[in-house]
């Protein structure tokens, strides 16, 4: 009985409710005397660290298990805490046991005294962070892998588009016929228009394309390759701060590409100066896209050229965006407007639903 005497006296002073709170704690907890004897241990502690719950009370911390809790750092910190000289807050320590993986613990210790200097106890909370850390690391790795994968895909898309663009331009440089060259160059512009969306997507968040930056890039690219004299012809971009889904931006971009190509080709045959304005404005779910020029205006009468591929693309995409297409005289010049009215959406899109 001899060795148990001081323990009994320690336990003696403990209220049964205190012991019950410790024993039933979900968080692994130890209630210790200042000489690191265990007054109470939570069942969660015994389960987490494979200690026999029936015999734990009364043992010294250092003798638990195979002595793995006899960590000099921990002991010294607990002693310092008991004497009121230190406080253990989220202190990280490794628990090493033979034939088992090292566990990463986070310990918190607090002194409990009720004003009686001869009755000081320590409350030690031990959290095993090993699994949580491993999960966090795995998540980081997965996110990292995903980012690398996306970069890799973007890289491949960019290279594929570059191959297509290069082949079209080589074709355009080789053909003899002006009409064939024209078609190849237009095909090249369309590829570049879709590529510009890709570039915006790779820098934007959440898969949305900021239209202002996209349209600016698109028109700059069109201007650089189609306008020989930048002082004579210019393209202005007046777009609000809307961001749209990628596929919507591809459609809007292709419409602008076709209309700008058309204006550059036909609106300014002999004009000393000319300006094309691309504008987009939205309000709620309504939006208006307009490409206007200050050129010669629309041809009338029998000289009207027959609608080409560009017109077909614009009409198809405008319809797909549930927009109405309108061509008007801008005096001077021509304005082409695609208007989307959200209220009218259901009427044209799903007549069978009525």
């Amino acid at each position: 009985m001899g060795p148990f005497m001081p323990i009994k006296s320690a336990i003696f002073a403990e209220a049964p409710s205190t012991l019950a709170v410790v024993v039933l704690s979900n968080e692994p907890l130890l209630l210790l005397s200042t000489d690191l004897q265990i007054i109470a241990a939570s069942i969660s502690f015994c389960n987490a660290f494979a200690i026999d719950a029936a015999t734990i009370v009364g043992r010294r911390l250092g003798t638990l298990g195979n002595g793995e809790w006899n960590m000099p750092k921990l002991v010294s910190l607990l002693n310092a805490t008991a004497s009121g000289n230190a406080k253990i807050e989220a202190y990280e320590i490794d628990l090493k046991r033979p034939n088992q993986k090292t566990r990463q613990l986070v310990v918190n210790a607090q002194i409990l005294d009720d004003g009686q200097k001869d009755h000081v106890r320590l409350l030690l909370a031990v959290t095993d962070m090993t699994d949580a850390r491993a999960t966090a690391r795995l998540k980081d790795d997965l996110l990292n892998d995903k980012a690398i994968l996306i970069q890799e895909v973007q890289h491949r898309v960019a290279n594929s588009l570059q191959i297509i663009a290069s082949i079209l331009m080589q074709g355009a440089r080789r053909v003899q016929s002006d009409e064939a060259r024209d078609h190849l160059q237009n095909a090249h512009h369309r590829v570049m228009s879709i590529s510009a969306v890709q570039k915006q997507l790779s820098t934007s968040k959440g898969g949305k394309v900021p239209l202002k930056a996209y349209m600016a890039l698109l028109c700059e690219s069109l201007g650089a390759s189609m306008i020989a004299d930048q002082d004579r012809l210019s393209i202005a971009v007046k777009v609000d701060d809307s961001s749209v889904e990628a596929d919507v931006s591809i459609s809007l971009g292709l419409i602008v590409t076709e209309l700008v190509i058309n204006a550059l080709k036909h609106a300014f045959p002999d004009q000393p100066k000319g300006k094309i304005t691309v504008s987009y404005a939205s309000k709620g779910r309504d939006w208006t896209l307009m490409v206007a020029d200050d050129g010669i205006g629309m041809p009338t009468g029998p000289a009207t050229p027959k609608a080409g591929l560009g017109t077909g693309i614009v009409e198809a995409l405008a319809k797909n965006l549930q927009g109405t297409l309108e061509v008007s005289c801008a005096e001077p010049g021509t304005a082409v407007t695609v208007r989307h009215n959200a209220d009218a959406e259901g009427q044209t899109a799903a007549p069978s639903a009525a």
Partner: protein
Amino acid sequence: MKNGRAVVLVVDDIALIRMGAVDLVQSAGYEALEAQDAHEAIRILESRDDIDLVFTDVQMPGTMDGIKLAHFIRNRWPPVQLIVASGRDILEESSLPTGSQYFSKPYNDHAITDAMARLLQSKNSG
């Protein structure tokens, strides 16, 4: 310069892109050379002294990518002008040697030939 024409070395591991770039360089009136990676590019640069500009891709197989190649060239052959193109946005322009030009792929042919003309002109006047 060779026979009064600027010499441009195109470096890209993808054959079709390299072919397109060579065609672009020739259409702009320059002499084109080609290499499929950084090491071949360096071998070519070591073997002749008439190369005015290197137009390189970034991601290439081997131990040296286009950015390292650009720095290597700037150190070893300072007068050679540099244009770097990459499919992987966004390359920090500060990671390239000063004075080099960066373009993201797919690049606009006119933008590349404009940059070439500008760099070659600055080289000759400077």
